[in-house]
């Protein structure tokens, strides 16, 4: 790739990122989805279920909950990624972009960058809401930033999965239905809201070994400190391996699905 074409590829991705973020800013429903929904989730679990879920963590359930909500939200935020791409493929928007002499990578990178930014806003909102209802970081600033970075990286990896699903299915309703099928079990059958030890044995086997649990355990260790009740153990490097593996599998699949949209 020459320097010129690299510059253009960056330009194209940036223009489409700007486009996606402008649309997001101007549609109130998207803002609600990004900010209000995670706020409600945080408050719901904190006050409705929180009292019934016993955890032996300093500061109580809210400290256990918040990294879980963050992990879950990062995963669920990718639904919007799949839906936007499906709609664009269905309406022919992607076709029109492909007829222009733009970099092949621009549509996917523009989507990733915009949705990554959107996700960051959501994560910061959740942390702010968390602070208002008793959550506190206790591992230091570096670890707190590390937690946000890990959540963001995991969210972007799942964005690749969602890009593939959106472009492969190309139908809003199908994407929505399918999104619920994989995202709900993946996020709820994990350590996001309850300790996995409370689940029946056969479910525990899945919960303990799936990526969301590793990521959320790592988020917790970063947020609350690497302690006996929230040990980091193998969780950080397992999370990084999972993230790398998900990107390595689904990015090429998404690119292939993008080329096939027609």
């Amino acid at each position, binding site marked *: 790739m020459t320097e010129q074409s690299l510059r253009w590829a960056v330009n194209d991705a940036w223009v489409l990122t700007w486009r996606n973020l402008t*649309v997001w800013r*101007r549609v109130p429903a998207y803002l609600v989805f990004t900010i209000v929904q995670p706020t409600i989730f945080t408050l719901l679990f904190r006050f409705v279920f929180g009292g019934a879920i016993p955890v032996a963590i300093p500061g109580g359930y809210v400290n256990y909950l918040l990294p879980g909500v963050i992990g879950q939200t990062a995963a669920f935020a990718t639904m919007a990624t799949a839906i936007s791409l499906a709609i664009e493929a269905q309406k022919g928007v992607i076709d029109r972009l*492909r007829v222009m002499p733009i970099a092949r990578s621009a549509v996917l990178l523009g989507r990733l960058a915009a949705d990554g930014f959107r996700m960051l806003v959501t994560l910061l909102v959740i942390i702010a809401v968390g602070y208002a209802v008793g959550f506190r970081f206790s591992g230091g600033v570096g670890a707190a930033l590390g937690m946000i970075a890990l959540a963001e990286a995991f969210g972007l990896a799942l964005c690749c999965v969602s890009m593939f699903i959106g472009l492969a299915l190309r139908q809003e309703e199908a994407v929505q239905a399918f999104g619920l099928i994989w995202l709900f079990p993946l996020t709820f059958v994990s350590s996001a809201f309850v300790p996995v030890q409370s689940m029946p044995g056969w479910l525990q086997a899945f919960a303990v070994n799936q990526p969301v649990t590793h990521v959320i355990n790592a988020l917790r260790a970063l947020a609350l400190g690497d302690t006996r009740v929230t040990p980091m153990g193998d969780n950080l490097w397992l999370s990084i391996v999972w993230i790398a593996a998900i990107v390595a599998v689904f990015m090429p699949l998404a690119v292939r699905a993008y080329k096939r949209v027609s």
Partner: protein
Amino acid sequence: MTAPTNAGDKAIVVEGLRKSFGKVEALRGIDFAVQRGTVLGVLGPNGAGKTTAVRILTTLLQPDAGRAFVEDHDVVREAAAVRNVIGLAGQSTAIVDELTGHENLEMVGRLHHLTRTQARARAGDLLAQFDLEDAADRAAKTYSGGMLRRLDLAASLVAHPAVLFLDEPTTGLDPRSRLAMWDVIRTLVAGGTTLLLTTQYLDEADELADDIIVIDHGQVIAEGTAEELKGRIGGDVVEFTVPDRSRIDDAIAAIDTLGEGDPVLDRHRGQVAIRVGSRGSEALVETVRRLDAAGVESAGLSLRRPSLDDVFLALTGHAAAAVADEVTA
């Protein structure tokens, strides 16, 4: 791969193009060429294969067999070069509803690697040219159907394409917006752009195209100028309307042996058309006499040159507009 030796002054050359979707043969080997600076009307009902042909020519689909060249570039092997010289517009799919008209065009300019200043200037020019200046800073979702199509067309022209593809640019528009769109397209063509226009409306092809190809079931079934195509069905048409729809069969019976071939009937509108060859005025008088003898009242009796509707019917055995979606490809 070199272009065919006869390419020379041709903006588009298509040779033996085939494409199937599963068991459906959307294109069964079509050939045609478009001279630089002219308008080719690709005419056919829904599902005839028009859109498939446009998608191949604009590098969105790969053909199963055959070759196609746009401005001497192979659409498969030199897709990137093709994308540099073409524009595609049609059913306003390039427009982002939440962006303003100006932002939409500026974005397309930036994607064509204009600088910010250039992109802004070009957007302003196009908005003026397409009579959208007053709506320039309004979100596109507030635009009417006609305005959206014009904005979409403007978006396809940002980079001054040598060859423009318009895929059913007026489908779904009200008659007034349609006429406005025709004006815009005529201006464009006067500027020297080569245009390939697909349409299911025969009057549209008649109005805008220099040459016409008629596609049905993935094959070119006729080609020529509008006049040549009309000439092919030979002679004039006598047409009249039966206001009392219940008498329409009596009217048919009365004039049954008068024309060449079966009379064409539009039951919904009560309209009857008969091809009468060169016996125009004689046939007109005879029609009046026979309808009178049968006691059938008629209105709007006229003798006219054949329309492309008549041509399409004569060529395919079915009316252009009446065909349901057989293939949605």
